[in-house]
């Protein structure tokens, strides 16, 4: 830490170094709130994560080919007609509710709610135990959304009817 000359320790000349624990005081235990320099501590980890993610997609790219079906044909509608997977929850909602609800009100409310979240939830606590309402509401939303996405993506077949993915596979990436 100190930039002073190592041969002088607090005004006294250093005569030798003896290995072992310091004679007095305890070794400092690093605390979670202590500051550490970004380089190297955080940057090395970021570099490792970055390389890992990159390797992962490169290996995916070697193992699995991206799909390419026949050329687009406006006169031949596939059945089922599926939106990309990240819109599958919306499409699933559309099959149950009026389009104005499922296609406009729900996504609009989700976006507005997400944007407004930090201005609605003014509870400063960070521990989940002290913010039960927020955690429960958010988790329920997340679970419902993931379930709807899964259903729309994998459990829907011709005319948007229910199929088991192990019987018929209609998911498209």
């Amino acid at each position, binding site marked *: 830490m100190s*930039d002073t000359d190592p041969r002088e320790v607090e005004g006294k000349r250093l005569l030798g170094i003896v290995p072992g624990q310091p004679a007095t005081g305890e070794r400092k235990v*690093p605390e*979670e*709130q*202590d*500051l*550490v*320099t*970004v*380089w190297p*501590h*955080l*940057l090395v980890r970021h570099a490792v*994560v*970055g390389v890992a*993610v*990159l390797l992962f*997609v490169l290996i*995916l*790219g*070697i193992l*699995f*080919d991206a*799909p*390419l*079906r*026949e*050329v*687009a*044909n*406006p006169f*031949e*509608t*596939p059945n089922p*007609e*599926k*939106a*990309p997977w*990240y*819109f599958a929850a919306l499409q699933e909602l559309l099959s149950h509710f009026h*389009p104005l609800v499922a*296609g*406009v009100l729900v996504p609009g409310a989700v*976006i507005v709610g*997400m*944007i407004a*979240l*930090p*201005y609605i*939830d*003014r*509870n*400063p*606590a*960070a*521990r*989940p135990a002290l913010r039960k309402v927020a955690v429960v509401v*958010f988790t329920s939303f997340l679970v419902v959304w993931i379930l709807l996405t899964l259903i729309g993506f994998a459990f829907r077949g011709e005319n948007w009817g229910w199929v088991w993915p192990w019987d018929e596979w209609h998911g*498209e*990436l």
Partner: protein
Amino acid sequence: MKLRETNVGRSIFRSPDRKTERDRAAGHWSSFLLHIYPVKVRREELHFRYSWYLGVASTVLLASLVVSGVYLMFFYVPSPTTAYGDMQTIQTEVAFGQFIRNVHRWSAHLMVITVAAHMARVFYRGAYKPPREFNWVIGVFLLILTLLLSFTGYLLPWDQLAYWAVTVGTSMADFVPFIGGSAREVLVGGDQVGAATLIRFYVLHVALLPLIMVAFLLVHLWRWRKDAMLDQERPGMGLGPHAGEEGGVGAPPGSGKQGGGE
């Protein structure tokens, strides 16, 4: 004599010696790529469980998408008469064409997941709370931009999968009251998905949306750094498991003091 000790090296790196911690901090500020980081972070931020490194993963995926995307652009003309043929050429004749296309597509799908998961992790850590509210809002826009980029890119192969997925996706706009019909027409450029749609989605995908995305991302990263430094000036503002319990955090953020660090 090492490069960084020559005249040329000094003019580039500025800080020739990196022996003490202080030299490292000084060198830090002279490096452009490093300057997006704060100098120090709390030790807890190093752990995987803190962030799951989802922000880094999203950024790396974005970089992979930019590089693979620019490569693919060289072999693709956004017109219905050529698009599908170009895709076949990419998959069969272009050097590494199929591989680069695969990387681009899987990176895109993964990025949707990592950005959404990043958001969820930030929620559970409570990291959207003051003074970080506005960076959360920027994050919401980055998620929407990620979805739009993915969706506009989905049309470009011009195969049945692309065509009908986009037909379904854009038809939802029709249900928006008053402006829905015209919004859809502006996006699609007519009654149904066709040549006008392809060029519009292409330009949105390769130029307009990436520009907006990069602008938002720069602000997002910049505020992340600012907030990390803010933490260090006012210990009560930290994000530790007991943050906010002693009170003192409810004070309005943004007094004159906060900007002093940088």
